[in-house]
């Protein structure tokens, strides 16, 4: 719970008590957060990494010199050596005889898709549970939160492994597995955030105006509770990239061994660690840098959205 407590409560705006009309024209709370974000160097580094990662993933077919997972040059790979960098293959070949650079670039693509989809699914399911628990309260809250507690008590990787093992192997299974591990985190976070809103004056004021509870929860409390969730989603993308790699590494990913996926590349590199350490280094680095980018961006977002932080 401590990690959740550390997140900023997005209570009613920054205490800007005086001044007839402060701020720029049309500046909403999101815009001032954006302004703070732009001034945070770590956040900019994170944002650059994330943007690069997304661009690489989207434009992989244009950037990559060859097609992925072709094993075209399998003949050049011997049991004791993998060809290193050359004019045709700037990073050399992988152990299946595909171009390593191509594999890496396409790896970004599968990481992005799996990361975004799994986080999206986890966020949606978790948010739904969180809204039920925090918005309705009472018995619904108790039941939902006990289920979430049970899910939380299982280590997230173990949960993901179990789900991946139960479902068929394949990209969809991985996405659902990673998503399942995120659900309880989002549910708790949104619930806590909504509960913090429930006692706010503006919520009492809205009730005094005869607005229905659903309207107040969805139309007013939810937008005020989204900050921490957005931060968590960014951080979760980092976890998702790592978790996808971990699942592949454990052999629960795509059954095709030559597929362009960073975790899978790490597994196959393992066997040749002494002959071609670069095979492990590149995908490892890619995973680490991507996760770092999302983490930096997430942390910067957290600071930018914290109403107590100075601008």
């Amino acid at each position, binding site marked *: 719970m401590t990690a959740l407590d550390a997140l900023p409560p997005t*209570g009613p705006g920054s205490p800007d*008590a005086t001044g*007839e009309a402060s701020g720029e024209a049309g500046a909403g709370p999101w815009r001032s957060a954006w302004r703070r974000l732009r001034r945070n160097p770590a956040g900019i580094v994170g944002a650059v990494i994330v943007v690069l990662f997304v661009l690489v993933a989207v434009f992989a077919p244009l950037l990559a010199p060859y097609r992925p997972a072709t094993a075209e040059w399998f003949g050049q790979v011997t049991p004791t050596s993998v060809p290193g960098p050359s004019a045709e293959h700037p990073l050399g070949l992988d152990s299946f005889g595909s171009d390593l650079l191509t594999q890496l670039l396409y790896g970004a693509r599968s990481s992005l898709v799996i990361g975004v989809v799994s986080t999206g699914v986890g966020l949606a399911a978790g948010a739904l549970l969180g809204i039920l628990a925090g918005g309705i309260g009472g018995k619904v809250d108790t039941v939902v939160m006990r289920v979430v507690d049970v899910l939380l008590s299982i280590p997230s990787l173990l949960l993901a492994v179990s789900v991946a093992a139960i479902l068929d192997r394949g990209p969809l299974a991985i996405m659902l597995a990673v998503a399942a591990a995120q659900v309880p985190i989002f549910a708790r976070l949104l619930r806590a955030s909504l509960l913090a809103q429930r006692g706010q004056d*503006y919520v*009492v*004021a809205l*009730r005094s*105006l*005869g*607005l229905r509870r659903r309207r107040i929860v969805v139309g007013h409390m939810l937008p005020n509770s989204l900050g921490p969730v957005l931060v968590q989603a960014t951080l979760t993308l980092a976890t998702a990239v790592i978790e996808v790699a971990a699942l592949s590494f454990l052999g629960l990913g795509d059954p095709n061994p030559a597929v362009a996926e960073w975790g899978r590349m790490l597994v196959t590199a393992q066997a040749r660690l002494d002959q071609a350490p670069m095979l492990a280094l590149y995908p490892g680095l890619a995973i680490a840098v991507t996760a770092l980018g999302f983490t930096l961006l997430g942390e910067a977002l957290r600071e930018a959205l914290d109403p107590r932080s100075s601008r």
Partner: protein
Amino acid sequence: MTLLEVEDLRVTFSRKGSPDFTAVDGVSFDVDAGEVVGLVGESGCGKSVTSLAVMGLLPRRSARVSGSVRFDGTDLLRASPAQLARRRGKDLAMVFQDPMTSLNPVLTLGRQLTEVLRTHTDLDRAAAKKEAVELLGRVGIPDPRRRVGEYPHQLSGGMRQRVLIAIALACSPRLIIADEPTTALDVTIQAQVLDVLTGLVRESGTAMVLITHDLGVVAGTCDRVNVLYAGKVVERARREELFARPRHRYTTGLLAAVPRVDAPEGTALQPVPGSVQDRLPWDVGCAFAPRCAVADEACRAGLIGLDAAGGPAAHSARCVHPAELEVAR
């Protein structure tokens, strides 16, 4: 015609592990259509809890509410949540104390105004927007067409309180409960906001319950006044009566504590000694007795009625040694 009739309202908060606390202990008052009625008292006397109870905004789990609140023929305390929601915002509305926190920080003023309008009237989006601009203009916000697209944090406290007033008045309610509407504002702004509020209320024939600790505010606005102490009404009178001939010792104490321009130079203000915590349970005697200079055994001889001071029914005080009688003695 009586619009709101609160009778024997009692609110008790109970929490596991601590004794029950009765914040409102049998309060009765009524409000006629178009009238401004004051509820006056210091912090902790039950003013705000009374207003929340009337609006049905107290948490159901921890607060026990009894008595009756008849508004225009229906008992609000026995109305279903859906019935209550239909009337809140439309027939009766509330202006809250703290304009800094009573608006949703992430929505524009326009959204917050049109939402009420669209909930209770059948205006379409465009008409509601137009009405919102009009309402902002009516509460004295300059350039309402631009302001309607702004966020709460771009406005000063006084401006925000005007917006809250505009929202409360949006559906032309028949009764407004204003809970310390000017307390959180600068003194210079207080008078302006109060003028806007009372002006609009008088103009539209809306009745108002004005809750305040500030006798200056009461003097300038109310038709009738109820003075609250420790959860009970201790004195009730028309405004002129109350200021001319205060009877309850608590009321006289409050008036003596107000700075006056016409007081002789060098006169010290007289605070009411002690605090609300030093109180007797009402069924033992007068709750104010421990702080009262003239209290004796008679004040500690059981529950004192609101008619204890004698005199006309229109001016009653829950006091066995009312101020005037002593002067006559």
